């Protein structure tokens, strides 16, 4: 028997049956996990990294997969050895949740919405450890304390929807560790979380490894997470392992081309310091597109937003009166010049998306002013507004949801042109084809349907559609957040190229500081409905003044394997509730000017 080894996968192959024969998701993958070790499997979507980890629990079969080859040796708690591929369902059930715990990507949906936290935690404990409900509750409470959740007694009686995403992920982790498993599989445990929460959860996982001695298999697409967490790394690409080794070796001396490309595509915070303007990313193995002109912002104002307010009423009582308001956007002002990118950054619930929609009047603001090309947008008649929309377009986050699955791509891109009667007949066809060239999509895609395209290709179509009426201004709401890093780099470069060639201005809404640093001229940091700091990119990134900006920057994981996540991140207090009773009017924001154009909010709360 091999001391120190917990799991050894040899020649793993997983297939999914389809009408056209079995589709191989994972082939010939081998790795091992030592006791108490953190191993990261890193790869992009479709690389088979999740399927590999699910195989260890035979969970693949519930989504139709079949482990058709390989050996999955697991050294059990009692000293016996089992092949997880061949173990029967009864034995697997005693291993699942007991000797191997699992944490999933989506904390919002990973808990059953119909039962309390306490009920769901007790379930596994009663099953595996034979505890009574009372003993199980006691143990659950211990676990909740261990994952450092606030007010653990209260949480036991609460339902999942009453908890924030970060708290739910803590509950899921507590649940997975409750039976003291020797292996914890975490499948993208922080991908769906805000960056500050992500740092907290990663820090927690690292801490728990020390406290419990459990080995951790961490599945991620994020090289920065790898750098923070891993002892050893397995890089996967298209169902195969391309490289594995200690984290330092993978990050600093990657041997495989794919690993190098993956590392190059990651935007790193600080890459852009001392640079005057946005620059495209270097992409290895892909096409490169250097901008023809330097990305210098123009001087003339394109968009001016003043004292914008948007509140959402909460109704209650028998007569449905407004009892409180969610102050989504609270008195914010900013400008965007021609040829400029203003990044609006903040975490979920900060009001950045609502701001983007309010500027386009997709959401009617409650008060404030929006001037576009000198015209007062908010007082425009709907027919004039329609005219103006030609110049203001939007790209959404989810490339899967924002394209109509029933329509050909050429028709979707042609739709705004037809709508504004800009071109007809063969001129229209030419224009659509040119747009496809513009976003680097082959013309053979014109007659295809969205389902035939990958996420990145779809986002290009969405960009082509936004470009169709020749707009001056595009609101990009988390436009690259759902994409794999290599694809994200390409789409970012495309956006910069379009700005250089066509002189478009962007309102770039994002939660990702590293991406923002790469693409923006100026930055506005939003927190709980207000802009807490704004200035040029260099001002904000190189001389952050507001505590929240600093916390946001500190929370961004870096690719340096020597920096420990736990040392850097101080948990920041969760944002004050943006819900206020009806009639509440917060004090107007006061800003302090640090240097020319660099403003910091002085109000402590509002």
């Amino acid at each position, binding site marked *: 028997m091999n001391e120190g080894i917990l799991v050894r996968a040899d020649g793993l192959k997983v297939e999914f049956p389809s009408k056209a024969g079995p589709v191989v998701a994972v082939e010939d993958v081998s790795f091992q996990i030592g006791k108490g070790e953190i191993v990261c499997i890193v790869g992009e979507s479709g690389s088979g990294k999740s399927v590999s980890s699910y195989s260890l629990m035979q969970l693949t079969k519930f989504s139709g997969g079949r482990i058709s080859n390989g050996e999955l040796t697991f050294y059990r708690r009692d000293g016996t050895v089992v092949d997880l591929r061949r173990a029967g369902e009864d034995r*697997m059930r005693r291993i*699942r949740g007991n000797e191997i715990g699992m944490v999933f*990507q989506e904390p919002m949906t990973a808990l*059953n*919405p119909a*039962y309390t936290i306490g009920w769901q935690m007790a379930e596994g404990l009663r*099953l595996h450890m034979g505890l009574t409900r009372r003993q199980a509750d006691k143990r659950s409470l211990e676990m909740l304390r261990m994952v450092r959740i606030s007010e653990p007694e209260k949480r036991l009686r609460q339902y999942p929807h009453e908890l924030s995403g970060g708290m739910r992920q803590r509950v899921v982790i507590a649940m*997975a560790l409750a039976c003291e498993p020797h292996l914890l599989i975490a499948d993208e445990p922080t991908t769906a979380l805000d960056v500050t929460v992500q740092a907290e959860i990663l820090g927690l996982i690292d801490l728990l490894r020390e406290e419990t001695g459990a080995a951790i298999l961490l599945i991620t697409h994020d090289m920065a997470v790898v750098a923070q967490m891993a002892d050893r790394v397995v890089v996967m690409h298209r169902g195969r392992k391309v490289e594995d080794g200690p984290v330092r070796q993978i990050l600093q001396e990657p041997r495989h081309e794919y690993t190098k490309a993956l590392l190059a595509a990651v935007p790193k915070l600080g890459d852009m310091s001392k640079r005057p303007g946005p620059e495209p990313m270097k992409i290895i193995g892909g096409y490169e597109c250097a901008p023809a002109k330097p990305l210098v912002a123009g001087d003339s104002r394109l968009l001016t937003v003043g004292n914008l307010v948007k509140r959402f009423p909460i109704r*209650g*009582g028998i007569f449905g009166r407004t009892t409180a308001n969610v102050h989504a956007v609270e008195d914010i002002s900013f400008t965007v010049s021609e040829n400029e990118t203003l990044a609006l950054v903040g975490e979920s619930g900060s009001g950045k998306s609502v701001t983007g929609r309010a500027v386009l009047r997709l959401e009617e603001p409650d008060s404030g002013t929006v001037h576009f090309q000198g015209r007062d947008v908010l007082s425009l008649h709907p027919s004039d507004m329609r005219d103006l929309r030609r110049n203001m377009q939007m790209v959404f986050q989810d490339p899967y949801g924002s394209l109509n699955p029933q329509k050909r791509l050429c028709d979707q891109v042609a739709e705004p042109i037809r709508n504004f009667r800009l071109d007809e007949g063969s001129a229209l066809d030419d224009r659509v084809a040119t747009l496809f060239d513009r976003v680097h999509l082959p013309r053979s895609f014109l007659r295809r349907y969205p389902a035939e395209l990958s996420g990145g290709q779809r986002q290009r179509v969405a960009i082509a559609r936004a470009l169709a009426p020749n707009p001056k201004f595009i609101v990009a709401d988390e436009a690259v957040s759902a994409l794999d890093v290599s694809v994200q780099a390409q789409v970012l470069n495309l956006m910069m190229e379009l700005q250089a060639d066509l002189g478009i201005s962007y309102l770039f809404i994002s939660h990702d500081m590293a991406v923002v640093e790469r693409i923006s001229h100026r930055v506005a940091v939003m927190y709980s409905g207000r802009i807490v700091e704004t200035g040029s990119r260099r001002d904000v990134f190189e001389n952050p003044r507001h505590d929240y900006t600093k916390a946001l920057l500190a929370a961004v994981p870096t690719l340096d394997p020597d920096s420990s996540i736990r040392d850097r991140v101080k948990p920041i207090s969760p944002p004050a509730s943006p819900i206020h009773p009806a009639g509440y009017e917060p004090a107007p924001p006061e800003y302090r000017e640090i240097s020319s154009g660099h403003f910091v909010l002085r109000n402590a709360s509002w």
Partner: protein
Amino acid sequence: MAYLIKRTVNSAIILLLTVSFVFFAGRLIGDPALNMLGPGASDVALENLRRAAGLNDPILIQYFRYILNLLSGDFGISYRYGFSVLPSEKLSEIGQPVIEIVLERLPATFFLAGASMGFAVPLGVIMGVTAAANPRSIADRIVTVMSLAGVSIVQFWLGLMLIVFFAVHLGWLPTGGYGEWWHVILPALTLAARPIGRIAQVTRSAVLEELAKPYIMTARAKGLPPTRVVYLHSLRNAAIPIVTMIGDELSALLTGAILVEKIFAWPGIGLLIIDSLSRSDLPLIQASIIVVAALVVCVNLLVDIAYRLLNPRIRIGKKEA
């Protein structure tokens, strides 16, 4: 609590609208006095009855009187039941209050509806869950075919077939009637066919949808046995469309068991409505319809309350309000 009050007020408004409709529709279909006494009645007798029943007053006065009487539980006097002599101005002394006649029928109606749902709910849910837990399996196909058959079968024909087989051929059960508990078996089975089918269909699709959600994978990763995953985790979340369907079917049973009651000579409300229609007994028709409408409103209210109990997110909404 606020929500409950709101829903109850809504229900009351719906009932008032029904009552109004029933009252005015009753006046539109002809002269009530003539309906009551029949075409051979003399002018004097008609006039006497009109005066006695207040039919000469303005229609709105009659309407408000009707509503006030309803509130005190007075649904009027039957034109037909309990008369030994021809109806006259002494109507209220010798006639039988319609509400008594209707209430007398309620136990039979409840018994039949309850027995049908007693068959339909467990069977339909188990069939639906079994199908959803094993999609595209033999069991799934059998359930799909059976539920389609249950939904599309003609009740009239099914009832007769059950009588021919179980009552006439095997002689195990009576062909019809009311009194002992086994009388209910055949009519309840006949009525259960459609609810079984529809509940199975809804359960299958709702559970199938839930089983694809991430929390199910969490439950499986905890090592829970499949029955627990399916019945405790997915079914609870799939319950809302299922409860809606059960409420719909229960309402249908309370209102529309007419054919089956006729076939099995079951003395429920359906049979009463047919009888009173054929006898043009206007007060009795009105009372039956109002009582049935009240039952349906109650079922809907119960379904709404069930939503709150099943879904903690709705429950919290109530607390905040």
